[in-house]
């Protein structure tokens, strides 16, 4: 262990730093991210740092963050299937209807590069619908999808009626968003945690 590696009391008041926090926001799903990062900082500082030093503690912190991203995202998706069943139906509808509508527009006769662009243009709104309930993200996905379809049209040179496809997806996601909001507003949503009891609330 080098001199810079020697154990110290703290990883620093600003640990893990502004840039790292932005990276963690990208890496980890939103639900319970703060508690999770708090747990990581605490274990890195109180357990790993005294035993193995500052560098090892930082390395441990990032290794844990990286290896935790996958199970947390998988869990979030699994929970979404249960909580947002309608959204999943819309996403499946996009993935089934998209290729059918594209084929109806003659996309299957286009060059391979154009077909690939069409497929990406279908997957983007489906992924946006799956990963986010935010309408702005859905609109951005629809816009991006439209641009890809314009690219596909330019690549194929054919007169195809593809541009409406992403906006039909957007309307579907929009209707689903309103449906989900109505359910939540009427108290039918799930996933909230029970309030703490008096005996549970005292720990810090």
């Amino acid at each position, binding site marked *: 262990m080098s001199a810079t590696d020697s154990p110290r009391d703290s990883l620093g008041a600003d640990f893990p730093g502004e840039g790292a926090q932005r990276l963690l926001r990208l890496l980890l799903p939103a639900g319970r991210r703060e508690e999770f990062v708090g747990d990581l900082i605490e274990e890195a500082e109180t357990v790993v740092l005294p035993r193995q030093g500052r560098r090892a503690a930082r390395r441990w912190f990032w290794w844990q963050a990286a290896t935790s991203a996958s199970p947390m995202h998988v869990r979030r998706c699994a929970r979404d299937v249960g909580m947002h069943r309608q959204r999943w139906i819309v996403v499946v509808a996009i993935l089934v209807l998209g290729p059918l509508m594209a084929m109806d527009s003659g996309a299957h006769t286009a060059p391979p590069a154009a077909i690939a662009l069409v497929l990406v243009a279908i997957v983007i709104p489906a992924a946006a619908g799956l990963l986010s309930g935010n309408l702005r993200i859905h609109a951005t996905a629809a816009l991006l999808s439209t641009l890809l379809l314009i690219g596909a049209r330019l690549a194929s040179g054919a007169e195809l009626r593809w541009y409406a496809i992403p906006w039909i997806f957007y309307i579907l996601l929009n209707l689903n968003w309103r449906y989900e909001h109505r359910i939540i507003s009427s108290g039918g949503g799930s996933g909230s945690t029970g309030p703490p009891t008096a*005996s549970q609330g005292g*720990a810090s």
Partner: protein
Amino acid sequence: MPKGSYLGDFEQLVMLALMRLGDGAYGMTVRRELEETADRRVSLGAIYATLDRLENKGLVTSFLGAPGNARRGRAKRFFKVRASGLKALQASLASMDRMRRGVDELDPLFGVTT
């Protein structure tokens, strides 16, 4: 036991860790308990995913504690086993025990005299 409330091997370990830790059960302590007592090295993300699943099944409840300085102002999320969770854990352990009985090679390991 209803199909949905059966606990897998890792869920049983996490539930037992919650019970061993009592009022001090949160992500980090559960991870440490599994590592030190059960010799299971798992990522904190796996612990959080399992706790979230158990909470969704209604077997565990959670609540936020006060933010701490050692955590750079981030609160701890404490977990507690519910009565339904205790029941599910007992049922899972009992079914495992029933399956184990009569397996002659295992009985001496568990100190069972036949």
